[in-house]
């Protein structure tokens, strides 16, 4: 019984990890709006992404996900590469 409980809690935590979080992607090489346009466009094409916030000062692309939606790290990395850049890190944070 306790094992089942542990498994259920683990599954819950994994689902919670992928959902209801902002995804903060640090992108190397993102230095101008024309550069960032491709990132903005490509991320917005993803069905889970509701909003993209480009922050040059922090070298960040912040993805706000739709309610209950998720995006995997390898998808994030692939999209950044499609745009011609490199993801230095992917951080997930609870929405404020």
């Amino acid at each position, binding site marked *: 019984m306790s094992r089942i409980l542990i498994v259920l809690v683990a599954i819950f935590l994994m689902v919670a990890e992928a959902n209801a979080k902002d995804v903060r992607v640090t992108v190397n*090489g993102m230095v101008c709006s024309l550069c960032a346009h491709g990132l903005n466009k490509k991320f917005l094409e993803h069905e889970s992404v509701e909003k993209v916030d480009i922050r040059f000062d922090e070298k960040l692309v912040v993805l706000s996900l739709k309610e209950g939606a998720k995006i995997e790290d390898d998808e994030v990395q692939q999209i950044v590469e499609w745009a011609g850049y490199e993801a230095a890190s992917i951080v997930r944070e609870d929405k404020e």
Partner: protein
Amino acid sequence: MSLIAVSNPSYALSPQHLSLHFWSWMLLALCYFSPLSAAHAHPVTFQDGSALFLKYQPKLSGTEFNYSYTPRSALGVTHVRFKRNAHETEHYLIPKWNTLYQRWNKPSSQANIYLSAGMGAFHQEDGDSGGALLGSLQADWESRRYYTQFNADLIQAEGDNDLHHFRARVGVAPSLAAFDEIQTFLIAQVSYLPERAEAFQVGPVLRAFYGRYLFEVGMTQDGEFIGTAMIHF
């Protein structure tokens, strides 16, 4: 919080009619003004991205449209109009392949080497015409504050209709803008085109970009206007 480090990387002015009118005017501008290769364009944009580039100078103007089928390769077509002298004006129409040969993505800067090759045709306004080959190199480095670029565009055409254009640029941004603001750069440009009587040209260029749009206005030492527009979509 988790952190995953990534090793590398109607004539009633409906929107439809306004859009149609906009693109009609763009097409007219293309036909009329149609610089050497898309000199300061982005030869490759992003996967499934396209770029339209227009540059106007009274004696050398041009247009390029390209489509990036991968993040590193694009197919495009360029049109160059060159007024060689008071009596000779040539048009070059060249389908081309662009490749991002190398890119260095650093935390605060980006550097690129692009190569292009193409094969097409030229036509003189007096009726002479023939085949033309194009080869181009573009190297650039930019941060949010500084910008440098070098271009070499070579067209080898039948007869005595070659065109060789070399350009170097350095620029600085007076202030740093956010993604949804207008970013400006002050640029010094030097250009060498041996087929022109005034082969060396030097002048300032003001660049502004906003989102996916880029505009430039400048002037040569002879007072010749330089105008550029580019859009990514």
